[in-house]
Structure formats: C-alpha cells, structure tokens
C-alpha cells in the first residue's frame, strides 16, 4: 500500500526527517525533537496534524446518537464548545479517545486519532442504524494544524485579533486573509494553544493549506516559532500525562483503569455503549491503574519495559526522555496498591533494574511553571 501524505508533504520532505506514522509520511522532526519541544514549552511551535481523523455528524437525532456512542454527556454540550470524550465497546474497552465539538443543535464535529480513522468510521456507521444521521468523513477536505505554546495566542492574534476571546475547548469560525478557518482552543501538549481547521482544502489542492502554514510561521517569527514534528508531539504529550491510543489505552483497557473516570458520565440520562460493563467496573473496582513513574537514575524507560517492586508488577506503556525534567519518565499500569505517590518502583532496562518512584503525572511538570495553567507574568 502506498503511503498517505498531507498537503504539507513537500514542505516536510524539504525541511524535515520523514517517518511512517499510521500509514502517513510525516515529519518526526525538522531541527530536532529537543529544540522543537522547548519551543512549545517556552514560546510557540506549529504542527501539521492533518493525518488525524475529522468527521461531521449531522441530523435531528445526532445528539442522541452521539450520547449513545460516547461516554461523555453530549446533550449538555453547548454550541461551539468541545468535549474530550471516549468511545467504548460493549465490554467497556476504549475504542478511541476524541474531541467532539457541537457546531449547532444538530451538527457535530469529531476529531480522532490517525491510527483509528477507518475503525472509528466503521464503528460509527455500524451503530448509526435507526438514528437517521449523516456521517461524513471530511479528513481529506480539511487540513489541520496545531499551534501550541505560551505564545500561541499572540502569534495567532497577528492574523486574527478575535481569537483572544476563545476560551479553552471553545471553537469558532474565522475568515483569515481569505481563508475559511475553524479554530479550537485545544491541543495535545499541555500548553495553551489552538487546533486549526482549514476548510475546503482538498488534498489534491494543497496551496491554501501551504499558504496558511507559511502565514503562521511568519506571524510567530518574532517569538522564535518552530515547525514541530511528531517526535516533539510525543515528548510533549508524555510530559503532560496525556494518553496515546495504542500505547496507553486500547480496547483491552477501560476508562477506570486509564484514570479517565472523569470523562465517563454513567449517570447521564441516556444509555451508551459500554455503560453496563462500566457500571460493573465502578462497583467492583480495578485490578490495575495507570501511573506515572520518574526515574531517579539515568536511563530511558520505553514502551514494553517491565515495572518492578519486589517482583514484576506491570509494564511501561509510554516512556522516554523528558526535556523539561531532564530525566526518564514513563506511564504504565500497576495494581492499585502500588499506585500511591512516592512508592518506590524499578524499571527493567536491558539487564538492569533502575530506581524510580510513582509521581504525579497529569502533568509530570510543575504546573506553576509550565503548561496552560502556568503563572503569567
């Protein structure tokens, strides 16, 4: 099968190092993971995330349908607001995590993982019978960028002053230099920022998307904006304690284990797929839980490495070097009795057991210094 490409492919090829991600040829870095990571934590960075899935769900019963499909409470979602939520199977396992925006009373916009594009679409279609909704995959008609970092607002304001009004998880439509843009105040880095949807940009006609990319880089020039690849996207989300589908969550893991209880609305007025199974989990508790681990010795934990206490107690689901903390950090699953903060654990790296401990991981960094809640000024 040939690799899929985004509108920015020529730019990525000329300026970055390409890798295969979920079947897409995407940049892993341009200059390097660490400088790009730091640009986002300290100033601003720009990502092409067009590989993600974007689908419109419309119809009089769209709200009812999505309340049935998702763990969140869609009926209380106001127009032009978004919700981080999950799609589960009947067993309560996570099919995907996604953001659902309500564009109007009967129109919703779903943004989900690149690796699940086909699966999610099939799942939505298969379960839509009887709801009379239209499900339209617009991924190839809408480009998507992510502008992230403490200087993201100032950067975007240079192109469109109104974006300053946008609150977290709000979405709005703007006309920016002749382009039709939807901007949402969301991201996957822990920082303030925007996810930008460039409407009416079919893949075969990449120019509008390329032009907007260049406009953003120019607008952020005085803040030292950097184009950022998937490498920095991964280290940033790991430091923020955000799940990567396929690593930290999948169909064998339920939201309670994943510490995503807060996005499951068991008491919402409507039934949803997985509700019964999740009610049982709520009653009976979990046998494993997602934790964060920071290494106290030098070393880099990676996916699949064993987590030990007296004996092996779990496995790392995401790990790596944290540029902000300058140490190895990881997320993984362990039995609840080992999940208390400061519990000593070890991570097996090759033939050695390196010392670490359970730490606060959502996020790993100090929130008064980094991230969208940081102290201003």
């Amino acid at each position, binding site marked *: 099968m040939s690799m899929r490409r985004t509108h920015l492919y020529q730019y990525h090829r000329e300026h970055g190092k390409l890798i295969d991600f979920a079947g897409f040829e995407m940049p*892993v*870095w341009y200059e*390097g993971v660490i400088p790009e990571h730091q640009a986002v934590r300290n100033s601003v960075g720009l990502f092409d995330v067009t590989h993600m899935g974007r689908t419109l769900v419309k119809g009089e019963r769209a709200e009812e349908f999505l309340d049935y499909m998702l763990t969140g409470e869609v009926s209380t979602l106001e127009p032009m607001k978004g919700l981080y939520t999950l799609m589960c199977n009947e067993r309560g396992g996570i099919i995907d995590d996604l953001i659902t925006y309500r564009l109007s009373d009967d129109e919703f916009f779903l943004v989900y993982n690149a690796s699940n594009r086909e699966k999610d679409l099939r799942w939505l279609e298969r379960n839509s019978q009887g709801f009379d909704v239209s499900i339209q995959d617009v991924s190839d008609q809408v480009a998507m960028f992510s502008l992230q970092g403490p200087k993201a607002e100032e950067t975007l304001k240079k192109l469109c002053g109104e974006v300053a009004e946008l609150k977290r998880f709000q979405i709005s439509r703007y006309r920016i230099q002749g382009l039709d843009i939807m901007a949402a105040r969301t991201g996957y880095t822990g920082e303030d920022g925007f996810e930008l949807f460039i409407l009416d940009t079919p893949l075969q006609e990449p120019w509008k998307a390329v032009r907007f990319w260049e406009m953003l880089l120019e607008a952020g020039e005085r803040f030292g904006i950097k184009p950022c690849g998937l*490498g920095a996207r991964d280290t940033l989300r790991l430091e923020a304690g955000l799940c990567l589908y396929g690593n930290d969550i999948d169909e064998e893991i339920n939201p309670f284990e994943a510490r995503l209880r807060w996005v499951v609305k068991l008491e919402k007025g409507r039934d949803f797929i997985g509700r019964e199974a999740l009610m049982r989990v709520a009653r009976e508790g979990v046998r494993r839980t997602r934790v964060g681990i920071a290494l106290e010795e030098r070393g880099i934990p*990676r996916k699949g490495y064993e987590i030990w206490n007296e004996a092996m107690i779990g496995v790392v689901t995401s790990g790596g070097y944290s540029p902000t903390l300058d140490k190895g950090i990881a997320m993984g699953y362990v039995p609840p009795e080992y999940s208390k903060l400061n519990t000593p654990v070890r991570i097996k790296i090759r033939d050695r057991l390196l010392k670490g401990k359970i730490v606060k991981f959502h996020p790993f960094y100090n929130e008064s210094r980094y991230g969208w809640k940081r102290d201003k000024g």
Partner: protein
Amino acid sequence: MKKDYKLPSELRYSKEHEWVKVVDNGTVLIGISDYAQDQLHELVYVELPEVGREVSRMEVMGTVESVKAVSDIYSPISGVILEVNEELSNSPELINQDPYGKGWIAKVKPKNLETELKELMDSEAYKKYIEKQG
C-alpha cells in the same frame, strides 16, 4: 536532506558504523561515526562498558539512545577496555557535536589488531557503504 559526512581518512570503520583509531601499538580508540550520530540524532543517554571487561569483535559493548531510538554499540575489534569516556554519562550530546574527538567512547587494548583492522573499511569504502544505505 543529503549530507556530507565527516569521514577522517586515518580511521577504520565497521558495517555497524563504529570507528577505530589506532593511537599506538598498544591502544585504539572507539566511537560511532558521523553518519551514525546523524541518523540517531540528539543522543540523550549512553551506556558505557565496564573498564577491564574483555570484548570480542562484534560483541555488544554498550548502548546509545536518542529521543526516539535505542542502538547497540558493537565492538569493532577484540580486546580489553582500558578506559571509557565518562563525560558522556552527563553529556551524551558530545557524540553529536564531535563524534571523532570529544565523543570517543572507549579506549581498548587490542588483541588481534592487525588481522581485525583488515576486516574494517577505510574511509573511501565506508563512504560508498553509507551511500548505499540511503
């Protein structure tokens, strides 16, 4: 992004991208090539071999890790580890900055230097070899 890699002609190179520099009859220095450091990019961790350990050619003697990848260091020659570059523990990026100088990894007392040197590539042959790797 085609690059010109630095490949000093006084060194010998292995297929696994290590280099060997003969300091004198009794000692050689070992490191990884400019090409290898560029492919790995941004090294953030180096696991060094123990001093005194005996290594044979092609044996794993250590590990280098970048943000994205883990890569073994294979000993390009047989011998005893005399010294390791401790600086790399705190500053693995020295390998990126200066792979043939400050980024050296180990000093080894070789066992079959003459024979084993013949099995390594000179800079011309190594250049052709990495061109084929793309």
